[in-house]
């Protein structure tokens, strides 16, 4: 990388663009964090510095945690996301493996159909899904979300895992077949251990999608104790035209922490999952 050698060049080609990126990416988070610790007087004052806090306060967090059902929303979100992610992942592993490796008649078309299903926007799909949720008597339960989230998670994870499984050499399976393994043993002992980075990145994606999901959570759940964080925060911290900005931002901040923590733990797997590489 000789072209990066001179310090001046390094600044122009590397650090300044990186800095711009960082500022643009992190500013919303900064704003969110600022607002959630700012007392209301400073929030509405024209004289106060909008980018800084003079007297930080935990009042918004207190309001959020003790006067709303936020802990319950958080619990709902965790429960729905985890269960939906794991069931979707399990279904996707079987689907992707079958499509990619069993090569049954019509497997390609099946793969394509699953992908097309992902392209149907939730804003269309929620109407028929609402009818089904009603008929099944699941309206206003967490099950409504746990069972509907896989409609977009499974296509997504299947597609991602298909690509990952494709990168695992076919000979490994043939070799295992001769070694005496059954299909199930091949999947469990050879393919899945090798696909861990793919599984982790699919899992993180699925978890994030479920965590942030809004439209199904808004339509299929109405009582406060069953709401998820994104819906709860919006519906209960906006009263008419009054926005409780401090509490809203505190809710958003707390709500984004678990996903951020998850990403930071698995970032390496996540990258190799996206680039798909099995090294021998």
């Amino acid at each position, binding site marked *: 990388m000789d072209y990066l050698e001179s310090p001046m060049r390094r600044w122009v080609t590397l650090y300044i663009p990186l800095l711009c990126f960082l500022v643009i990416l992190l500013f919303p988070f900064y704003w969110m964090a600022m607002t959630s610790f700012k007392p209301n007087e400073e929030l509405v004052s024209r004289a106060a510095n909008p980018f800084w806090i003079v007297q930080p306060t935990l009042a918004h967090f207190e309001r959020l945690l003790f006067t709303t059902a936020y802990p319950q929303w958080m619990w709902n979100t965790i429960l729905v996301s985890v269960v939906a992610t794991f069931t979707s992942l399990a279904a996707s592993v079987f689907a992707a493996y079958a499509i990619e490796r069993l090569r049954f008649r019509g497997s390609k078309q099946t793969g394509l159909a699953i992908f097309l299903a992902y392209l149907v926007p939730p804003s269309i799909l929620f109407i028929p899904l609402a009818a089904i949720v009603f008929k099944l008597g699941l309206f206003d339960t967490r099950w409504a979300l746990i069972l509907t989230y896989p409609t977009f998670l499974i296509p997504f994870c299947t597609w991602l895992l298909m690509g990952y499984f494709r990168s695992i*050499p076919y*000979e*490994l399976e*043939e*070799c*295992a*077949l*001769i*070694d*005496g*393994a059954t299909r199930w*043993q091949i999947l469990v*002992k*050879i393919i899945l*251990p*090798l696909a861990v980075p793919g599984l982790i990145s699919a899992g993180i994606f699925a978890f994030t999608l479920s965590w942030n999901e809004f439209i199904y959570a808004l339509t299929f759940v109405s009582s406060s104790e069953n709401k998820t964080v994104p819906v709860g925060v919006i519906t209960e911290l906006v009263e008419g035209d009054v926005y409780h900005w401090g509490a809203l931002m505190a809710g958003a901040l707390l709500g984004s922490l678990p996903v951020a923590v998850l990403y930071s733990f698995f970032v390496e797997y996540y990258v190799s999952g996206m680039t798909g590489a*099995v*090294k*021998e």
Partner: protein
Amino acid sequence: MAAVTLNQVRKSFGSTPVVHGVDISIDDGEFCVLVGPSGCGKSTLLRMIAGLEEASGGEMRIGARVVNDVAPKERDIAMVFQNYALYPHMTVFDNMAFSLKLAHASREEIRQRVDEAARILGLTEYLGRFPRQLSGGQRQRVAMGRAIVRKPQVFLFDEPLSNLDAKLRVQMRTEIKALHQRLKTTSIYVTHDQIEAMTMADKIVVMNGGKVEQIGTPLELYDDPDNLFVAGFIGSPAMNFIPGKFTAGGIVAAGNVTLSAPAGVPLESGREVIVGVRPEHLMVSDAGLPAEVVVVEPTGADTQIYCRIAGVDVTAVVRERHTFRPGETVRLAPQLTFLFDPASGQRLA
């Protein structure tokens, strides 16, 4: 250990036939090499024996048992793949123990068999390593170790040395042969390298275009090829072919060069033939045919002379030390010739 018998085995992919009715019988304990150019169906044949491809017709037997519809794991075979196919997430020990674990062998037995195989292959100190921490040759040994721990009836090798560098290939070739002499397990080995075939095989099956061209011991194929293909494929450098016409006085090639015909060949005069001469059967002699030297390549032990006889590019290998220069004319006398029919490629004499 078991004999392997193929009877009119066929394979088509869709409507494209790739193996056309192959008959091969491999004796118990024999080392059989399937050799041929790429796309000749040799790997497909091996994969059918392994059960990784279904035969479209014919019968395959391992021992007395017909295995056409038997699952790979029930065939009691072990296969070594070209890219080794080692499980990347398992240590060398686990790679070798995998099949035994699946067969529910006892812990002591697994340990004992893996240790024994590792000792034979010189892998004892690498048992705790992962495949990515090994060199190409070591990986190849692990792949073989994985095959031998199972003590199968038949070993199948699918171009196992292709990914190694030239020096290691020669070394592993000897190791595989020594291993076979020690274990005496029936082995079927696929390669496109005729030198590998010649040096390792008890029996060679030369394949071309999905058909068997000839089956025999290495020297049988070398000394007595059935057709142009086998004659040209076996031997390095390859046999020279000079087209000509059969006459009473000999075989007349282009430029009125006359080659002597093998004795006692009942052919009608005027018949088109192809004369085959191995490079090592061309001797420098005053009574020989005039040849124009193009390139001279001394290798130390012998010298390869690329030249033109009767307008045809010909290679000669001579052991004596001559100093020929390009453009010079030398005289080369064929010591031993083969005659082939140009239309069918079959050997005439």
